[in-house]
């Protein structure tokens, strides 16, 4: 009986990959441990090994095939070269290129039958981008790298340090190619010693340099909290304005996928509380690039929170020599009049999907991407709430003392008379992140939660 070789999942967030190159050919005898093929993920090129012994009777997915979903059969190992009878029956089918979104199925079922045409969504004119600018489709990952590379070309004093940023090309491939361009002096692999290297980076900033510190993930920055807060954030004040720490702390933040409690949390609210640092958390690639460039130029310490799941997502990025986005400015990404949905980072995924689904019900939501957490652009939120009279805040972080809590308090203080309903918060559940797939899903917010919250503030 033959067995299928399946497309493997090679990282917590991998959903699909590329069969880069077969290292065996049909008819070859393989034993367990033999390297069969090279698989390219969004982070790295990896080898897959045979687990079963036999003859590689058929290659189902050829060299260079992209977007092969995890668990798709890519080859068959049989007892001999003609054995392609896989247990369970049917002839393997080639990989579907894209899965149907289950949420869209749900939407189709839930959408009321009488609504046949959704009202047209209003996408506000982007005043940040000059008219006629060409756009380039870019992943968030590439946008972050481009931002660092451009700023390092412009300023000799900017350098990158962190674990695996140089020779390994970045644990999440953010710094890919940077060692080759800038050399080991400016792209520096550190030992695994967050407390120490963060302190060294802050000291280097005191000494006149502009460090970019990459935390492989922000979970590890907890070891460096003292230097981020006590050394970087407070020195300008404590020195009466004489010296501060112009630097960026950046890296993956928030839940990835199935990595459990110690690797899954959003630190926005932690850092947002600290006077002396700025906190940025972009969603799109254009904002990731423009804000990171601004963060590197900023004369203050900036905590730049990225999201692993967004790294591989593509967005249009303006094709400009020097594209920057100002820190401290939120962006209305969809105009509407029924409710204001405020979110940031991956929360925008839920907010935008909910807005689509609400539009099908004739509810036009205005969606604001906060982009910067501190200083928070309250005027943009207040202006919107004065128009919609309702507000829902969406985030993946915990609900207690959250960004949503802060926005709720501010909206209450500044726009109490305009509110027709209490501000609603959609957040992660107040539990450590569980590992089991079903529990993890329950712990995180989703578009349905946002739709429900919007309906609750609309009393429908």
């Amino acid at each position, binding site marked *: 009986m033959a067995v299928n070789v399946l497309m493997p999942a090679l990282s917590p967030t991998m959903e699909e990959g590329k069969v880069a190159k077969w290292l065996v050919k049909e008819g070859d005898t393989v034993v367990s441990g033999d390297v069969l093929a090279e698989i390219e993920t969004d982070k790295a090129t990896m080898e897959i090994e045979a687990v079963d012994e036999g003859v590689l009777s058929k290659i189902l997915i050829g060299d260079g095939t992209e977007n092969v979903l995890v668990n798709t059969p890519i080859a068959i190992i049989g007892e001999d070269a003609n054995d392609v009878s896989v247990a369970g029956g049917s002839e393997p089918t080639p990989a579907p290129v894209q899965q149907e979104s289950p949420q869209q199925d749900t939407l189709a079922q839930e959408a009321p039958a009488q609504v046949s045409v959704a009202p047209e969504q209003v996408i506000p004119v982007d005043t940040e981008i000059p008219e006629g600018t060409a756009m380039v489709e870019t992943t968030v990952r590439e946008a972050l790298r481009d931002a660092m590379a451009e700023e390092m070309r412009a300023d000799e004093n900017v*350098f990158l340090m962190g674990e695996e940023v140089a020779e390994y090309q970045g644990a999440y491939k953010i710094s890919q190619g940077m060692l080759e361009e800038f050399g080991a*002096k400016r792209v520096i692999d*550190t*030992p695994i*010693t967050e*407390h*120490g*290297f*963060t*302190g*060294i*980076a*802050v*000291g*280097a*900033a*005191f*000494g*006149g*340099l502009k460090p970019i510190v990459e935390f492989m993930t922000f979970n590890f920055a907890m070891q460096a909290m*003292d*230097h981020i807060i*006590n*050394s970087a954030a407070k*020195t*300008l*004040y*404590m*020195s*009466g*304005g*004489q*010296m*501060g720490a*112009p630097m960026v702390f950046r890296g993956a933040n928030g839940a990835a996928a199935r990595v459990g409690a110690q690797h899954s949390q959003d630190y926005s609210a932690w850092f947002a509380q600290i*006077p*002396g640092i*700025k906190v940025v958390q972009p969603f799109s690639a254009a904002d990731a690039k423009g804000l990171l460039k601004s963060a590197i*130029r*900023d*004369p*203050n310490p900036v905590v730049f929170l990225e999201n692993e799941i967004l790294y591989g997502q593509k967005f249009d990025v303006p094709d400009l020599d020097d594209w920057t986005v100002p820190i401290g400015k939120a962006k209305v990404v969809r105009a509407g009049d029924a409710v204001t949905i405020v979110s940031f980072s991956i929360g925008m995924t839920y907010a935008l999907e909910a807005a689509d689904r609400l539009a099908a019900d004739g509810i036009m939501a205005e969606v604001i991407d906060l982009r910067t957490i501190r200083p928070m652009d309250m005027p943009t939120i207040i202006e919107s709430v004065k128009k919609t009279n309702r507000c829902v805040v969406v985030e993946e972080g915990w609900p207690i003392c959250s960004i949503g809590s802060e926005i709720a308090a501010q909206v209450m203080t500044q726009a109490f008379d305009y509110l027709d309903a209490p501000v609603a918060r959609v957040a992660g559940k107040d539990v450590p992140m569980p590992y089991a797939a079903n529990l993890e899903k329950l712990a995180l917010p989703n578009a349905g939660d946002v739709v429900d919250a919007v309906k609750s503030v609309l009393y429908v």
Partner: protein
Amino acid sequence: MAKAATKKASKDKLTQFSKDEELKAYYAMLLIRRFEEKAGQLYGMGKIGGFCHLYIGQEAVVTGVQMAMQDGDQMITSYRDHGHMLACDMDPKGVMAELTGRQAGLSKGKGGSMHMFSREKNFYGGHGIVGAQVPLGAGLGFANKYKENGAVSVTFFGEGAANQGQVYESFNMASIWKLPVIFVIENNGYAMGTAVKRSAAKSEELFNRGSVYGIPGVQADGMDVRAVKEACDIAFKHCRDGKGPYIIEMKTYRYRGHSMSDPAKYRSKEEVKKMRQEHDPIEQSKARVLEGKFADEAELKAMDAEIRKIVSEAADFAQAAPEPDASELWTDIYMEAGE
């Protein structure tokens, strides 16, 4: 890797100071002593708030280090920092006015005793978290190496901080990256109330704590300014030759409590008395001045009077200067672009 040269320095072969050096050292140490006595007095009068950690007894350490420094070298230390600031030639009036929390203080009254800085004088603080200044100081060394400016960062910490994990993280990186940093361990015997023997493994050889990282270390008599300077001369040369970091353990002693609110019941009065009588860095220097006929008693008295005047003027200034304007509450939190 070459075996790290770690050793205890011998007192017998110390290079004698010239007349200028001895007088300069005596003056610098006495200024710190008188300043700290005055600070203690003002604290007792309620003019200085919060924590106040005096440097009395340890004056030879920073003085000897400073004498070995060159223009552009930096200094960074913990919260026991008044002596370091005076050694860096920071204005005694500005330091004292910071202690009293006034606008004219070096941090506009917003830093206090533990948090003062002077970019102009290359003094990088004044840090209140035990051990945090160690990676920061290594970072200054990192910047020196990056800019190739030839400067050395002198990073001071106590024997208490020498047990912090980040110190060893810093040793490791300073060594692999060959950072020009001199780690000066000011071993005054007590981390607040805990004797070094009770808190540090192999407490008699803290200078050896970098040896596994390949960092040479020596122990020097931190009560003898000549021994301090001599150890530093070697260390600075080592750093400037591009050989990476260096550790000097200064055996020293503080006469006062850990802070003004510490009754120091963890040691005997006799122990303190013995150190004062037999090892006082200023008395030792004075004896050499007189013996070498660098100055006579009358001249030293005049010097003391001059220092007392400087300190007394600083104290008057610090008490008369206005408190910071209420608007200062909201300044210096963020720097504007282009500042």
